[in-house]
């Protein structure tokens, strides 16, 4: 489909290799000075979008991130991988941007940019919510194909193969649609050095989240973190002789 525009959501998260520590006060984790990177599932979504454009199925890939000014570096990486332009939806420094807020911002942006396809990662590795894509589809009243492991554009439709608990499910959705990428959709490329340098010249727009949220977000946010603590250190296990002894042990400790 000529002129097909793909909107890709990219989230800036703490790098997967970092040892996460609870911040003082127990309200969150330490983020100051900690290495951040592009969410791996968002990388997969971005790779799929770039491949669609390279195949000629899509015309433009727009990367969008919702968060603080620091997300610019994430968008630059997305541009280096192959997005055509980037949009930073800037929330206030202290604003909690959860799935609902991110989806509302993306919905507002979709209203302006009119993409035919929105590609997101299935979940972010910091909160593991797995909600943004679904909430966004509901807000826009668009069909959704989540946990995508295969995406094929067919004119006004998109054929999505989903990895579900029972196996693989294939859906055919009418565009515009929201898809979320799962692990086996593709293997993301590295940004080559020439592309990293070219990313400098690609346009990166910054807009305020409040512009897009309009009146759709009731405040205050509906979720509040009560407590955050590290899991207890692992204790030793116990050995039992046979299955009846196992059942006895489980019963006596109140587990069953």
């Amino acid at each position, binding site marked *: 489909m000529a002129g097909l525009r793909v909107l890709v959501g990219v989230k800036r998260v703490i790098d997967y290799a970092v040892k996460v520590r609870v911040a003082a006060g127990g309200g969150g984790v330490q983020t100051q000075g900690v290495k951040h*990177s592009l969410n791996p599932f968002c990388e997969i979504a971005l790779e799929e979008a770039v491949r669609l454009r390279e195949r000629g199925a899509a015309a433009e890939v727009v990367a969008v991130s919702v968060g603080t000014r620091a997300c610019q*570096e994430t968008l*630059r*990486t997305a541009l*280096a991988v192959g997005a055509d332009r980037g949009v930073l939806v800037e929330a206030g420094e202290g604003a909690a941007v959860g799935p609902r807020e991110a989806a509302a911002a993306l919905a507002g942006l979709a209203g302006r940019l009119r993409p035919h396809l929105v590609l997101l990662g299935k979940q972010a590795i910091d909160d593991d919510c797995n909600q943004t894509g679904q909430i966004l589809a509901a807000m826009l009243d668009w069909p959704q194909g989540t946990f995508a492991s295969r995406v094929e554009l067919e004119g006004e439709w998109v054929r999505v193969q989903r990895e579900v608990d029972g196996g693989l499910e294939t859906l055919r959705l009418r565009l515009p649609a929201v898809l979320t990428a799962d692990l086996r959709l593709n293997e993301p490329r*590295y*940004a*080559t*050095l*020439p592309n*990293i*340098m070219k*990313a*400098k010249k690609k346009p990166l727009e910054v807009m305020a989240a409040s512009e897009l949220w309009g009146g759709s977000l009731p405040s205050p946010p509906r979720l509040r973190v009560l407590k955050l603590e590290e899991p207890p250190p692992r204790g030793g296990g116990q050995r039992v002789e046979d299955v009846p002894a196992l059942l006895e042990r489980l019963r006596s400790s109140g587990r069953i």
Partner: protein
Amino acid sequence: MARTGTGVEIIKESQLKRNMPAYLAPWRASPCVFRSSKSELMPNLASDGVVCAPLQTFTEEETMLKNMVTKFAQERVAPLVQKMDENSKMEDSVIQGLFEQGLMSIELGEEYGGTGASFFSTILVVEELAKVDPAVALLCELQNTLTNKLFTTYGTEEQKRTYLPRVAKDTIGSFCLSEAGSGSDAFSLKTRAEKKGDYYIINGSKMWISLAEHAGVFFVMANTDPSLGYRGITCFIVDRDTEGLHVGKKEDKLGIRASSTCPVTFENVKVPETNILGQVGQGYKYAIGMLNTGRIGIAAQMLGLAQGCFDHTIPYTKERVQFGKSVFDFQGMQHQIAQVATQLEAARLLTYNAARLAETGRPFIKEASMAKYYTAEVATLTTSKCIEWMGGVGFTKNYPIEKYYRDCKIGTIYEGTSNIQLSTIAKSLAQEY
């Protein structure tokens, strides 16, 4: 004489001079003097025009580049390191990967297929690669600081048009200077180039030539007129498939085994005049000029080597428990580790600063020599200590530590031995005073 709680109250100066203990006397005079002299040392930001940022400040591109190379090195190179070392052979997929990612043409202009990034970017790339495999870092370093630089600095438009797209795409370059009889004394080389009309005939043999196994183009330093001594040395560009050029069997080395080191012989090799790089008799100058920046590249390689080794060791020392606590928690260990970490940081700053000096076009020969000499020494110390800290496992090939130990030794030897570096530094110093 009344005394307050904080010090001695002065009633009469003459009295004070008699009663003041000698070691307190300087205290009265020095603070004021110290402060004013310190302020004189502050750089004038307006005239310098340079931002006083820490040396580890990178531009956004340099940071993205560093992250990309880290990922590439971890995913595409790390799994193959042991195999490449055992077989003494660089994997084709690694060489291809380096070319594909644009890591072999970092500073080349975009018109030749390069990226047009800064020299500092090259240093960062070499450091990141060396953390995983110093042999792979060497390949990248030589291509960028030697091969590409020689072409761009001294090549004619014709030569640049012919060779630069090739070296950016898939051709490795190899620099042939050393011979069996001339290492540090490079300019006593015996390879001869005789002029015959509009071409030259090269005869001789080179030794210790890095990357010769895979190279597609060679820079051959040969003497066109031995009676002129080193002023006859000329640099020739010779394609691999030229008749008479023969790459010998690679050396079975202690370290950086994946990087090939071979003898290269020249038997009546015919080279057209148009393949002379720069001017006849100026080869010695080009060699010195290139090796000055190459030195910083090697410093980056040794730096990455030491850091990579260190990064593998410390987590182990924190996990390993002996006598009821982790090995890292023993004060003796902590002191040793802190000492090594400090020297590593000093080596890093020397290297980064030398790179920044070279970039801004300021004199950097002394600093480059210092960086190369110091990082090679620090790498040797670091790897040696890391093996000790790892204990028995550090001594086995199952862990990567012993490879770093073997690899580091070449740092004190090639691209100017440590003794040569020290002589260079001393020469610079002699000129300063």
